[in-house]
């Protein structure tokens, strides 16, 4: 049997060098968010950084909406790498890992400063190449009004109906009692308020259309944006964080059926407990 295994491994290695002309679905595995084609979002007026077309496993177009940013700042999870800026041309910028061998969660920022108004947008892209944890870059203070998640989803997008912590800071100091609004591409609008530590406990709305979930399954995606607005010294600050979220996996699962089959398996094993043999 071991010979079979080794033969199969050799066969597969050989097969990899064979050319078979067939079509198939491509795309790297492991990226957290699902890239979609661009569309002007009508569901919010808050600034957004949305994932657009994806180029293999190592590059993605990020589209800036509702913000006139000249560049997108890309921050790798590995803090030894310096942040880089990607030019925004025709409303989008091509984002790649800062180093080919360091993937995982890359934070994305865009900023617009006009007379009496500072607008910032933040999001992330998860490259499938392994990398380091984003906790350190998430906790870093970058100045101005910041609305950042405490943690990002490890794999895949956020999920509807789940709770996540976000932190609202102004020049590093937590902001308490500030109104924070969540809007989703499914049409939800929820208002939260930051607590004394500047933390907002966000419950992502369960607002997926069941027909969409039936049609697209686990791959169904929507977007949310969380934003806050304050005024300081006559300057209006608007900060937003957006990302994709998917349906609750339990929408297409049946717990009672699962328990029933587990009990069936248990029942099949019960005769083993009755008699003593061998």
């Amino acid at each position, binding site marked *: 049997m071991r010979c*079979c295994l080794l033969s199969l491994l050799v066969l597969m290695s050989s097969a990899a060098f064979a050319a*078979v002309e067939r079509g198939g679905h491509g795309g790297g595995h492991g990226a957290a968010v699902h890239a979609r084609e661009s569309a002007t979002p009508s569901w919010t007026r808050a600034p957004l950084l949305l994932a657009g077309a994806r180029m293999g496993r190592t590059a993605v177009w990020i589209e800036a909406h509702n913000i006139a940013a000249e560049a997108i700042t890309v921050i790798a999870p590995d803090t030894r790498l310096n942040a880089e800026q990607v030019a925004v041309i025709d409303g989008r910028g091509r984002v790649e890992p800062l180093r080919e061998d360091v993937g995982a969660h890359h934070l994305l920022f865009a900023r617009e400063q006009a007379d009496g108004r500072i607008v910032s947008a933040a999001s992330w892209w998860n490259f499938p190449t392994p990398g380091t944890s984003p906790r350190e870059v998430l906790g870093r203070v970058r100045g101005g009004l910041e609305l950042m998640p405490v*943690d990002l989803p490890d794999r895949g997008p956020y999920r509807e109906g789940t709770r996540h912590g976000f932190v609202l800071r102004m020049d590093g100091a937590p902001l308490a009692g500030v109104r924070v609004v969540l809007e989703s591409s499914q049409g939800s609008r929820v208002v939260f308020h930051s607590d004394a530590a500047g933390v907002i406990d966000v419950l992502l709305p369960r607002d997926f259309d069941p027909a969409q979930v039936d049609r697209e399954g686990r791959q169904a995606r929507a977007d949310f944006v969380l934003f806050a607005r304050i005024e300081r010294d006559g300057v209006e600050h608007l900060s937003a964080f957006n990302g994709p979220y998917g349906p609750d996996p339990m929408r297409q699962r049946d717990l009672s059926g699962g328990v029933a089959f587990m009990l069936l398996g248990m029942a099949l094993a019960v005769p083993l407990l009755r008699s003593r043999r061998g």
Partner: protein
Amino acid sequence: MAATLTLSRVRTVVQLVMLFLTVWGANILGPYTADKITTRLPALSCAYDQHNGGYCVLVPLQHQMKHRVGEAIVKAQAVTFQIVLPLVFTMASFLLFFLILGKAFCGWVCPLGTVQEWINRLGRRFGLPMHRLASDKVGRVRPLKWLILLALVFLLPLLAGLGVAPHGLGNPYCDVCPSRIVTTLLTANTDELALRTHDGLALALGALANTLMGFVIIGALAIRQPFCRICPMLALNGAFKHLSLTRLDKREHSKCESCGVCAKACPMDIPEIHLRHGRQAYHDDCTLCGRCAEFCPDDDVIRIRFAPLTLFRSSREYYRRRIAAEMPDGQVKPVRLVRKPAGGDAS
């Protein structure tokens, strides 16, 4: 103190630590994949459990067969090292871990192995019947783990990547693995126990997985390590067992033929540990739990070695202490509530 320190107790402590690490480890290490010890662990440390400290190697193997090898062949693009290297890298990482601990990953680290073992101890405590597999039945069961490894870990994901098999067969082993359900249930997450109802194939695989899991949980009360016997990780570890520095060693001894206690002690019912010696005694099914060495009543016959070092060796003295608490087949002796008077019997 020395009287209470047995290899089994050391293993129990290691299993406890490893169970925590492989089921809840992320609570210490951090929530991201990047925080994990590895994503290529030679034990069924399930990637569906978001709280664990390291992932099972079977996950990247299936994914790479489907998404890299299969899809790369389909695309018929220029073949580069980008296709083969990830698979080689996964196997190399696995082998690096394996080089050190070898098959001890099964007997000391695997969370499902630990759960089954403890369920069986529960069965012994409650005096439930115990079933051992006879040599002829062991021979019939053994090929299953190889078939599962070949079919569910390598072949079906590759065929799914090629577009020949349905997309839903991308990680068929994970879909039926009881460790996926058991370890997530240990974190109070019922998502994996629930059946996926969006397509017939997912439903069928889920139903099979749950039935298998239910069978294993109850079956483990009466059979030692029921799932381990068909586990593809046991096969994968078995395929490379001689590459590891940690191994089992048995020398020929005149009493062995008439003894056979080692085979009774073996939770995998491996007759070769009794009938053979040298390299042949260290069978593919061995999980390096060390029970055969613990219950061997003769000095230096069975040893667990790390390279030239002997980590544990059988001894008559150790056997006497061990047998005082537990029979070789796992039957526990009644707990003695009244301490014997010093100096032995008064009579």
